[in-house]
């Protein structure tokens, strides 16, 4: 018993006295790295960028084949797609132009967009304050993050009009943001992208072009220029891409969505080998009525009978005597995909930007070849000279045929050309105020500085 006594007493003594700081110190959890540490090393800094790209690929406005991506939602919001999906206060309402300020999809889009903005801001801050990364690394990391942030902001601006813009990480500041006017946002984006192009280089980090380079940033900058009606600048930006030896026009329609093409400026690689591009499975259905969305009659009618895109980029499905065309630009189903990545920017868009910039400067003859390129690839004859309004209409129509269900370009084009109200012909619920989506109601409740809500909602 004496031994026991001693043992007890000593243990008690140790534990009674030892109640100090050391006892409650813990190591970092094994799945976390200190923020400063992330930007001490190129590998971890790149991993932070990977988080950004994975987010863009999996759930963002540029994610194709998603109920939260612009390709699908804006395709249906405008006149390219018909909705066969069913939900409440979500996709169906957006397709019918009946979105409420509580729309769950709009809320998700907003939330993920600003989350990605924060990630980008965090990376920009990390790169700027790194003391160990080489300057060139700091530059391209910051440039890529700036580029991604600008891409998100541009979509947000186009969807919501005036938006809160922030480059800060301070949550107190960010929780009281006011809206920045659309014009000011575009001006800011121009500055941001000009900085990004100066920080990035033409070299791709990966030969498969899965990370953006300076040219991708220039394309985005060109989108901003045409929105700001800075036609010569847009022309110049487009020209620098067209003149680059990195890119060649893809003459084969069936190769446009194959990942090896040199007409691709930037594409998103699926996570695993074999994974399908979201678009491929999203629109897919067979032996039933459609599950998600099909090509609208209105869009179908804009294709000439012999337009190859109607047979190569769409698939006809029949069920109980009814016919539908589903978008089929990407064809490989899950488990079966080796050569398709989700294309974000392709050279064809630069052709259309060039055509628009030239046409707006009344250089229609110079513009025409850029318009004819995709026509001819689709098996159509080149158009002879067009004038004024006819050229503009044809530009819009041809871009629609080329980019249907891609990135929401149709909606942005109609908006830029001031033709959104044309939608009333096929969309019974269309009204002028619907050019903007409502800000999520929850957001307005949490931050009154964001008031007023967009008109009409």
């Amino acid at each position, binding site marked *: 018993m004496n031994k026991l006594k001693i043992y007890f007493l000593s243990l008690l003594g140790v534990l009674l006295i030892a109640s100090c700081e050391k006892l409650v110190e813990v190591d970092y959890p094994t799945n976390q790295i200190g923020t400063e540490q992330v930007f001490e090393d190129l590998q971890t800094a790149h991993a932070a960028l990977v988080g950004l790209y994975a987010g863009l690929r999996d759930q963002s406005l540029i994610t194709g084949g998603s109920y939260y991506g612009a390709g699908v939602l804006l395709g249906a919001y405008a006149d390219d797609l018909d909705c066969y999906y069913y939900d409440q206060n979500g996709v169906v309402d957006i397709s019918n132009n009946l979105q409420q300020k509580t729309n769950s999809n709009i809320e998700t889009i907003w939330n993920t967009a600003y989350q990605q903005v924060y990630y980008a801001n965090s990376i920009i801050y990390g790169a700027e304050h790194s003391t160990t990364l080489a300057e060139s690394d700091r530059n391209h990391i910051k440039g890529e993050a700036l580029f991604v942030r600008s891409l998100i902001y541009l979509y947000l601006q186009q969807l919501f009009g005036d938006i809160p813009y922030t480059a800060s990480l301070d949550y107190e500041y960010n929780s009281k943001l006011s809206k920045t006017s659309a014009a000011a946002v575009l001006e800011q984006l121009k500055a941001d992208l000009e900085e990004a192009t100066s920080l990035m280089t033409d070299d791709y980090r990966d030969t498969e072009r899965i990370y953006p380079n300076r040219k991708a940033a220039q394309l985005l900058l060109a989108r901003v220029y045409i929105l700001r009606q800075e036609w010569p600048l847009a022309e110049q930006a487009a020209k620098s891409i067209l003149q680059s030896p990195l890119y060649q026009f893809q003459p084969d329609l069936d190769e446009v969505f194959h990942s090896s093409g040199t007409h691709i400026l930037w594409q998103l690689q699926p*996570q695993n080998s074999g994974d399908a591009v979201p678009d491929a499975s999203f629109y897919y259905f067979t032996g039933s009525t459609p599950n998600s969305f099909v090509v609208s009659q209105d869009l179908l009618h804009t294709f000439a009978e012999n337009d190859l895109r109607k047979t190569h980029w769409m698939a006809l499905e029949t069920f109980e005597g009814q016919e539908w065309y589903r978008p089929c630009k990407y064809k490989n189903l899950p488990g079966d995909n080796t050569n398709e990545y989700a294309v974000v920017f392709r050279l064809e868009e630069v052709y259309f930007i060039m055509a628009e910039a030239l046409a707006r400067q009344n250089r229609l003859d110079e513009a025409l070849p850029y318009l004819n390129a995709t026509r001819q690839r689709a098996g159509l004859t080149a158009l002879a000279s067009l004038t004024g309004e006819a050229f503009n209409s044809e530009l819009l129509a041809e871009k629609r045929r080329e980019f249907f269900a891609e990135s929401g370009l149709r909606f942005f084009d109609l908006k830029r050309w001031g033709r959104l109200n044309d939608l009333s012909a096929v969309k019974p619920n269309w009204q002028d105020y619907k050019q903007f989506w409502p800000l999520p109601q929850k957001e307005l409740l949490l931050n009154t500085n964001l008031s007023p809500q967009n008109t009409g909602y």
Partner: protein
Amino acid sequence: MQKDKTCPLKLFRLLFLRSLIALLFVTHANAQTITVTGWVSDPQNQPLPSVTIIIKGTPSSGTTTGADGRYTLKGAPPNAVLSFSFIGFKTQEIPVNGQQQIDVQLQEDVKALSEVTVNAGYYAVKERERTGSIAKITAKEIEDQPVSNVLSSVQGRMAGVSITQNSGVPGGGYNIQIRGINSLRADGNYPMYIVDGVPVSANAGSVLSGITFPSNGEINPLNAINPNDIESIEILKDADATAIYGSRGANGVILVTTKKGKAAGKTAFSVNSSYGISRVTNRMEMMNTQQYLDMRRQGYTNDRITKYPSKAYDVNGVWSQDRYTNWQDELIGHTAENKTIQLSISGGSPQTSFLISGSHNEQTTVFGNGFRYKTDNLSASLNHRSADNKFTLDATGLFSDQSNNLVQTDITKQSLLLSPNAPALYNANGSLNWENNTFTNPVAAYNGTYSYGSKTFNINLNLRYELLPSLYIKLNGGISYQAFEDLLLYPSTMYNPSYGITPSSSTAYKSQNQRYSYLLEPQLNYKYRAGDHEIDLLAGSTYQRTKNTEMRVLGSGFESNALITNLSAANNVWVDSDVLTQYKYAALFGRINYQYKNRYIINFTGRRDGSSRFGPDNRFASFGAIGAAWLFSEESFVKERWSFLSSGKLRGSYGLTGSDLIGDYQYLDTYTVSSTSYGGSTSLYPSRLYNPSFSWEKTTKLEAALELGFLNNRVMFNAAWYRNRSGNQLVGIPLPRTTGFISIQANLPATVENTGLEFELSAVPVKTEKFQWNSSLNISFPKNKLVSFPGLEGSTYANQYVVGHPTSIVKIYNYEGIDPNTGLYRFTDYNNDGNITSPEDNQVIKNIGVKYFGGWNNRLAYKNLEFSFLFQFVSQNQWNYNSLTPTPGTKYNQPVEVLNVWSEANPGGQYMPYSSGANSQKGLLHGYLMNSTRAVSDASYIRLKNVQFSYRLPVNQYIQNIRVYVQGQNLWTITNYFGIDPEFVTIGFLPPLKTWSFGLQLNF
């Protein structure tokens, strides 16, 4: 008729016994002393072991009864008086008068109940000397109920403790509120669980379990303990009882004590087996096919749609319009079975005793389809005391193995919403029917299973040594280990074949969580008594370390679904999460208890805590309480004037407790590794918004209570008032998403107050030799209020809380009725802007929560028969079915109440004319309805919670006793609630089930 036969035998026996007695008498008549033998029993004729028998006047001579209740006392003078005493029973004195056989039946001493001790965690206290608020139930109440988690048997039995089962699916969680909700943080309200002295994690689930179980996938830790292994449950409520748990005591403490072997008994075996069946408590009356199709067609007519859309299979002729299925019968109408068997062995010597118990339990679900929950438990306890009584050792080991296999999404909601003319679930050949790809077959979801296996191991060791007289040194130590594995499957067969999904898209998640924790608590305890003074001192320290590992792997793409549970067969495998986290906790604690004249008691408790959950500058804090009691019935002026008062106590306490329930590492500025990869590289994401300066949430508790006993304590009455105030609220403050995140961890200068009154009345209305009726009633009136919230108006909580109202309020639209001109719902437009908008117009404040609750428990015993029943009652407001149901007229079934639709001919109709879904205005208005005064209503209920009927068969020489019992749970409910069942935490999940169980217990 048998009289004749027995007559000779009786005669013989009589003669034999008489002569034997005579012989013995003669033998001893000459001696100075005699030997007395006999049998001591309780009022139920059960043998009473360990009864002390002494010869009055010579306390040194005496004996005790054995496990069979028998005793032998040698050397008693023939004229002696024997005294029979035992705790809880009235002492009886019987003159020997030369008898050599004295059988005694001891009567229970009701007053002695106050001698019962209550476990307060670090110390035990006599019920009469208790200064704090501690509720208790014992094995007696627990074993009456056919439940697999002991918390179900606490429901309705404790004042101030509100318990709701999260769902009727076995193996899930419970919502427990001990004196209300203190924290604004939803997951900051878990009580602390301590099993045999060792803390266990309040949620035994994982990330994946959140897909299947409501309330964040909570799996209750007490699922791992067989209720029949539990000796008692004590719930600590006020400051006096909880402050010694410091930073973890704010939400109350649940102490679980398992059964121990009884010293000095013969080796006893016990077998207990039961079989039960369970069904849903209630079904909603939904529309039949005719009513449903009429509604649908009317919806299209109202929307001026003449050609039914191609997708409207229910009305456009693709599906048969003559079919009718009651989907509640089909999907949640199965009978669940419940089988239990338990074996135990106990025994020991005066120094050492043991108890070993093993049990197996199996439950199926009302979903059918072979889903099953199984538990195996093995528990062992060993208690030893040295011959000189100076050293004691108590060791307990609890092992449990649970496995649960379930459909991953609760199908209850589907069973209500599915069109009544939807096609058959299965084809003639037994395969799933997709009705040519037009039918989203609900049981296809059954292919997507969620299953878990949980192995837990708890060991507790408690050593005590009497160093000097009355000075004890103690060590409480323990290990708690849990290995939790789960598997979530998404095979391609879950999906409609028209999606073209093949096994190459099948996905399986597998996760493994291990929680390992150890605890060391050395303590010193000193008891001093001199004259009228009594002091009890306790000092100790705690060191706890917890290590959690989590590994979650995702596999996708299989050659065949048959291989889906084996991730090595997946085309792509990636590790979703691989993380090790630590939690360290250290503390010093103490208690000073002083009693004067056995009637004035004062109790100080305190604790200084350090926790790794806070940033380096905020790790330590101090907590403490003072409690006092006055046993005024001991005062002579009370004794003289109020002799009917057999006991009376006033007590009160005040103190500070805390909460550190925020998860680990929230103060760090980090990036988190994610399995999501791009370009073949893994990714890093910012973990959270950075705030290193948050600290403890603090709750001050104040209580006053009166405890009275009348008529020799045959009637007991307790009343308690409490006021708890929680400040420095530790919450994730909601942020606008422009900050990149949903919230930030911080202390909020808001104060939440919980006040309440609790009453308990217990009585023994009838007590005769053969018949006894015990009855007890408890009722609690909890009140929750947000007392202050500086800056609420400008904060992100502005539309969630209102100062002066409970924190469980909802702000909803005011439903005015149906506009007779338009036939549309009308809501109050508070700001008169012509639009119904939020937050301007959802101005009606309703409290979702309990107004009062309680239980009425009765136990009637007649000879060997026992009958008990418990009524539980709850008065509350809840969301009703209007908050869940989709727009009437869309492709979802509706309750028959929706038939009462408004029209000019039926101006009293309660629902707007139907819409197929194409009328967006109606969709919008229905959305307001779902969030209006129509969607919140009274959900009070009275429930026959438990009925138990048992019969003890007479004993024979081999079998000590046989007990046969029938038990029922949730048998009968009275409610006006509009919905499937008023007892729920999250609407739309399977409510608790109704159970009948039959069992047999053998002791030998």
